[in-house]
């Protein structure tokens, strides 16, 4: 497993001094946060396109995967990671064990599982296939292990 897939926590030491703000608060007060170095919490319904021009001063982005059937977070992660080359951390919160493979391949760099999944082997679900069939944020595609 590459370093990028190593699970970290949103409350790890590197992040503990970063102020986290909700998307609406950030968008309505962008100028206020430009010099502060913030993290932005994104809901699936938030328009990720509005973040594009502010990424240079955002330290980290938090994506919420709580709704098991709502797949918008995967496209949000794709835009941040692959399309815009965001270098900060992309953290998936309220993550589900069975969706780790999709989150990590879409560009999420670390995650925090929901409490329900304590005690299960995360690697079974984050690294379960010997090949993949498409390019994604974490590799260039066909026949590469993931």
């Amino acid at each position: 497993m590459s370093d990028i897939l190593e699970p970290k926590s949103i409350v790890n030491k590197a992040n503990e001094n970063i102020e986290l703000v909700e998307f609406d608060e950030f968008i309505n007060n962008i100028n206020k946060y430009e010099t502060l170095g913030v993290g932005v919490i994104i809901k699936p319904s938030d328009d990720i396109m509005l973040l594009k021009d502010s990424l240079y001063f955002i330290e980290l982005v938090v994506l919420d995967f709580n709704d098991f059937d709502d797949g918008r977070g995967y496209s949000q992660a794709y835009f941040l990671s692959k399309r815009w080359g965001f270098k900060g951390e992309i953290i998936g919160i309220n993550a589900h064990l069975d969706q780790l493979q999709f989150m990590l391949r879409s560009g999420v760099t670390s995650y925090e599982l929901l409490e329900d999944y304590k005690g299960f082997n995360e690697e079974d679900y984050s690294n379960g296939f010997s090949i993949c069939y498409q390019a994604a944020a974490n590799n260039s595609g066909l026949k590469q292990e993931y």
Partner: protein
Amino acid sequence: MYQYSPEDSKFLVERVDQFEKQLNRHLAGDLDEAKFRSLRLRNGLYMELHAHMLRVAIPYGTLNSSQLRALADVADKYDRGFGHFTTRQNIQFNWIELPEIANLLRELSDVGLHAIQTSGKATRNITADPLSGLTEGEIEDARPYCELIRRWFNLHPEFSWLPGKFKIAINGAKLDETALRIHDLGLRLVRNSKGELGFSVFVGGGLGAAAMVGPETASFVALDDILSYLESAMRIYNLKGRRDHQKRLRIKFLVRELGADEYSRLVDEDWQQTKDDPELKLNLAELEDLKKDFALPIKPINLNGFEEKVDFNYSIWKKNNVRSHKVSGYSIVNISLTKLGAAPGDATSEQMRILADLADEYSASELRTTKRQTIVFPYVRKDQVFDLWQSLEKYGLASPHQGTLAQIVACPGGDYCDLAKAVSIPIATRVQQRFDDMDKLLDIGDLNINISGCENSCAHHHVADIGLLGMQKNGEEYYQITLAGETLHETNIGKKLGPSVSGDVVVDAVEEIVNVYLDNREEEERFTDVFKRIGIKPFKEKVYE
């Protein structure tokens, strides 16, 4: 015939292993029903009225005889000796015990079959013309493209949790046997003015309560750009598709609400950002390799001097069930599974094994499945068609109904499906009984009836000459009638005839409609052409008078 590589086969096994872990967690109470439902559907597993139903993919509708025998074994071992061929090139088993599912899927993976993404809100099995590679005038065999696109969207990280299911069809032939414009996304192989190969793209077609013919969103996408275009089409849907209303999840609602022009503009805007990304280019070298795997296993043969046998029953069967082949000396044979009282598309394990043996003997071990729930033998020598017919006769598989009114397409309906509002199969049986005279059927000619038991429209009733949709009124079963739907030459949604009619009289209504057609038909005129010429009024008058 194309076979999975060892790497592909390993992937299938790994997917089964993963699903087995999820199943075990569910059975142990560690994975709740809602999440398990979402996961099991992505592995083709439904909870039906009486038991679990498994939908197995038949990619691009092509099977070899070994695969069909494996499906027969599954029918015997895990079902009650039956399989049900669907309208979208899948086969379903209706009596599956949950704890046995992993073993079943492992047995299928041994022959390169799987149930991955045959359901759920992801890209479904990609369908192709069942006659791909066989007919004159075809631009190209669509199956290699189906395979490459199937792979690309297999467990795709970004598009595996879409707002709704996503069905793709690809056609390379003159006639549209795939009904691509009633799919969420349809691809038509075309050549541009420079003679280059590419695709016309149609997005937002669908049946159900808001039936819609998919508008064209791009008139020409070059071959190597198709993956990036498809990603953009799905990305706009994933981000903007309705998730707030259970009945508006499909992409057709997004296309309708935005307008086709605006949806196309958004897709194009996104696509311009990715189309030059080398990682998203279709691998043309791999495509050429795949084309070799899909090459026809026959060469032209000279049958000068061959004389066709003279037999009345054989000639009727041949007229309806045999088509000309682009390779000289060969025919395409269509085999109807229709049996009075049985669900259309149902096959017993014994029938599957017989068909597998006959395919070995007469059709280079290959079979195809169609949206009319029939089986095609794609490579039958002309001088062996009679022998094949005799064998089919012996096993009760020589129904001469292909293309006639008696070859009804029906969903399982209220007898099996917990979504159904009315029965389908008993209505199909009653129609078949009403039109059981072969002379009459031959006189009527090519006319199709499709019966769906609910608005989910699994039997595609909107695009049949005569479509019946089951519904409930005051606790009784009624049927909405639609007329003159079609997809083969052009795509049209059937027009509603009027108020729904009771199940007691629906077969009388069908007979009246057929009589109006016969009374007004000029020479070989098709049902849809008569309807366009005389309008709905004469049909309405007869049914509701």
